[in-house]
């Protein structure tokens, strides 16, 4: 088994006014199937950029991003679009701009590939999976933050993705809603074998994750027990051996 998502030495910088800001420096991270990895960080540290790079919605300045062992940089646009519709779920709590019913919104990613009837059947299943069946006929504007989070996850999982990238699913949620959302994400990893990379602004939201990391000053820090191991000896480096979560970290 190899890591489903692999980021190797990823760097990214932006121009902010006259200065170049490096939001990601040499970030290395693997996420395996059936794993929930949570990256904690304050607002504006680059968590969303990390997810966008993982989905190739943004290109890194340095480093390589692989999905199922394939370098995402080499994909043609049509291949990437198909990947995002079928194998990678991108979840953010933005919602539809138009006044769609939530059933229509959740069905959207499947309409082109599966046709109306099947897409709506899959959408109903996804809504049921997140416990939001009763919101099928409602509009985004009438939902609470907790309901929006769950609907957004339904919109992500309707394509039965291998990888789910979830941006700030617990922002502005109360304790009960937060536990409900994080428990759901954990069950997607445990029960359905999905790989999940989520970003969270509050520490309690990492409690259901298999692995945790923090992002600050462009650097991804891991608890020492999950820090990069020394290079494997030839005897240890057997085919199929996977280190599920790695981080390359150096103090300045």
């Amino acid at each position: 088994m190899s890591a489903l998502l692999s980021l190797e030495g990823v760097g990214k910088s932006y121009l902010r006014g006259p200065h170049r800001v490096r939001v990601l420096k040499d970030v290395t991270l693997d996420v395996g199937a059936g794993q929930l990895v949570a990256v904690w960080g304050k607002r504006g540290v680059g968590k969303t950029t990390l997810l966008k790079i993982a989905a190739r919605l943004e290109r890194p300045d340095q480093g390589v991003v692989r999905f199922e062992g394939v370098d995402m940089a080499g994909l043609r646009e049509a291949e990437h679009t198909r990947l995002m519709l079928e194998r990678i779920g991108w979840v953010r709590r933005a919602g539809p701009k138009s006044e769609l019913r939530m059933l229509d919104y959740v069905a959207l990613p499947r309409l082109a590939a599966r046709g109306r009837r099947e897409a709506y059947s899959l959408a109903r299943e996804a809504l049921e999976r997140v416990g939001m069946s009763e919101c099928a006929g409602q509009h985004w504007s009438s939902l609470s933050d907790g309901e929006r989070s769950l609907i957004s996850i339904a919109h992500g999982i309707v394509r039965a993705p291998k990888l789910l990238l979830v941006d700030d699913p617990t922002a502005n949620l109360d304790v009960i809603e937060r536990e409900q959302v994080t428990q759901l994400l954990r069950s997607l990893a445990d029960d359905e074998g999905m790989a999940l990379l989520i970003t969270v602004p509050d520490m309690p939201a990492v409690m259901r994750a298999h692995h945790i990391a923090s992002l600050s000053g462009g650097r991804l820090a891991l608890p020492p027990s999950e820090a990069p191991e020394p290079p494997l000896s030839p005897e240890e480096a057997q085919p199929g051996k996977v280190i599920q979560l790695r981080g390359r970290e150096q103090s300045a």
Partner: protein
Amino acid sequence: MSAKIAVLGLVIEEPSPAHRLTAKLRQRLSSAEFVDSNVYSALARLEREGLVRSCAEASYEATDEGVRHFEQWLFASSSAPPLRDELHMKIALCQPQNLPRMIELVYGQELFCLSRVQELKKSFERIRSPDPSRWSGLVMVMIRDAELAFWEARLGWLQGVRESLENMAVSHQDASRAERAAKLDGSLRDASPGEPLAGTGLGAGVQYASRRHREA
């Protein structure tokens, strides 16, 4: 908080033998880092003071006086914990030449915080998931979140400090480089580079704020 009052609270909740109290204390108040012997000495003291007594099957139960004593503590106002942190003092007193080591120290503390969060996560995974819609589950989540809030705040503070120190180190390197260059071409007197960081400690970060995140 003393182990004595914690043990008394647990005995009031449910009469229990000492070994079960030690397990409960570890589970419910892991952040307080009580050790098993704390429970046994607390029970001995509570019994001596007439706040608990032995009952069936080597268990302890609270006396009426014990319940009154506990309620008196529960309803009294709580004092704020003192903030005496060695790292605060080191940062307050460090000099520019200490920056690389200070950055290492701060980063080490960040990793320590992450480890504690991970330990808490693991200890929480060992028990049945609390249901926050029930009172007992909500209490467990709130206690856990109290400890997490502490580590989250500390981690956030450490990250901010590290980023400031890193930017100061860059600024300091720039200033040193400029000074060396000025000396080399013999124009040190005209260049007036000064000593922007010497002896200024962390407070100097303010004057370099506009250079934050700038690449070396």
